[in-house]
């Protein structure tokens, strides 16, 4: 016990025995997260994949402090998570930029809240906007930007806070394939440059494999950790396609059982999900059920 406590201190994000239930319309208690234990090292890139409804976004909201767990505790950089705060910013699926503020004002929103002097906040914001290649759009309003640009602003707005951890909730799933590829590359560059810890929720297996070092596969109903997969390191160069493909296959095979469970629940027991013959598009995205 002593040892595990000590070990926990080295860990940057510790999720310890988290449980969470919601009540549905019939007032039944539905358990969405059951006994979740995760430890994440400082500066790492962790992805959570799982079928829809497995509670992966709920877990992210708990880390953000936007929701409260029924049991267990979450610590980030040694501090217990009690409420939302700028040290744990979230990049949501939709950028969520404030339409009444310019790009620059959106990015400095959090800094001004921290009472940083305007000049300092703006020069910081401009640096970050340069990093996401949006220097030309500082004075634009969000509606003038494309979806990819909006998401870049959202990432800049989060990074400028120099957070302990960057929480990303399916940030690229609303974008088209090309934009997503570009943003993957940029996110990896940013991650290497800033060494920020990233906790990434997605239903896109390929995305998880390409971006993260560690993939946590979730089982559903209730949400539980099914397996943790370490992606072969690629920090020193481009990973061969065969390795990527192999890892993808592994994640997929772990997920298949869960997919079948979900489909059976939704379509009835006669539904059988044949392994290895599933439709998948080039993005590795198996549709919204994953």
């Amino acid at each position, binding site marked *: 016990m002593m040892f595990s406590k000590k070990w926990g201190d080295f860990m940057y994000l510790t999720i310890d025995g988290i449980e969470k239930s919601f009540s549905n319309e019939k007032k039944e208690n539905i358990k969405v997260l059951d006994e979740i234990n995760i430890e994440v090292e400082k500066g790492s890139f962790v992805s959570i994949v799982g079928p829809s409804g497995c509670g992966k976004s709920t877990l992210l909201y708990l880390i953000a402090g936007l929701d409260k767990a029924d049991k267990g505790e979450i610590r980030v950089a040694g501090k217990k998570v009690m409420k*939302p*705060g700028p040290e744990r910013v*979230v990049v949501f699926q939709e950028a*969520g930029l404030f339409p009444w503020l310019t790009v620059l004002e959106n990015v400095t929103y959090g800094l001004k809240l921290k009472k940083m002097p305007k000049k300092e906040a703006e020069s910081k914001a401009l640096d970050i906007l340069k990093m996401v290649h949006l220097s030309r759009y500082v004075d634009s309003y969000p509606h003038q930007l494309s979806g990819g640009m909006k998401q870049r602003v959202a990432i800049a707005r989060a990074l400028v806070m120099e957070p302990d951890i960057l929480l990303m909730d399916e940030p690229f799933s609303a974008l088209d394939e090309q934009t997503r590829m570009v943003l993957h590359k940029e996110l990896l560059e940013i991650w290497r440059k800033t060494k920020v810890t990233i906790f990434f929720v997605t239903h896109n297996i390929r995305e998880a494999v390409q971006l993260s070092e560690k993939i946590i596969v979730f089982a559903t109903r209730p949400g539980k950790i099914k397996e943790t997969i370490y992606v072969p390191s690629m920090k020193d160069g481009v990973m061969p396609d065969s390795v990527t493909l192999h890892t993808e296959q592994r994640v997929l095979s772990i997920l298949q059982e869960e997919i079948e469970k979900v489909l059976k629940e939704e379509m009835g027991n006669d539904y059988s999900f044949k392994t290895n013959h599933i439709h998948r598009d080039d993005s590795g995205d198996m549709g919204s059920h994953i």
Partner: protein
Amino acid sequence: MIAAIWEVTSRFSSLPDFMFPSLTQVFQTLFNGLMSGQITEAIGKSLGRILIGFTIAIIVGLILGYFIWRFKLVEDTLGFVVTALQSIPSIVWFPLAIIWFGLNDFSILFIVTIGATWTMTVNATSGFRNVPQLYQRVAKTYGSTGFHFLRTVILPASVPQIISGLRIAWAFSWRALMAGELLGGGGGLGQLLEMGRSLGQMDLVISVMIIIAIIGTIVDNVVFSRLERNVQLKWGVNQR
């Protein structure tokens, strides 16, 4: 076209001039009224009143809207009452106002304010309620709470709905003002109407009507339309 018909029918009709004045006569009176300051003074007085009443209504409406949005108990009690009150034409309050405050400026101000307050409250409430969850979550993760949260997220996010509330509230209070002045006196365009009637000067009455229409249109088309357009431009029309 209308002007021509008016001019001709007026000249040839058997009604005496004071009942159905010709267009030229109306313009004459309008011009004289503006020059002598009789009409301009009335405009000033009316606008002053509506400005005060309208401002109070906006502030009270926003505050009430906030409480209805924020607290379930207030919503269940006051929220319901406000909806009921909103359906009462504000001039109906006038007898009460006269008894409470006397037949004076204050009574007129009271019905002007009350005419706009409930509409403002209802619109502010639904504006606050429709602020997307996403904006609220974003603001909270950046550490925004309390008054800062209200000022930087809830208020600006509900601006489109608040503007349409202002527009309706303005229309209500403008009507209430005219009715109040007509009955209550104490100067203003409404009283000028009443004066025109008692003096049998329909040219004056019509002049004042024209002024009322012009002011109403200007405020609606210039002030509120411009506000709305600015917001739409800034936000992008499809953005919500």
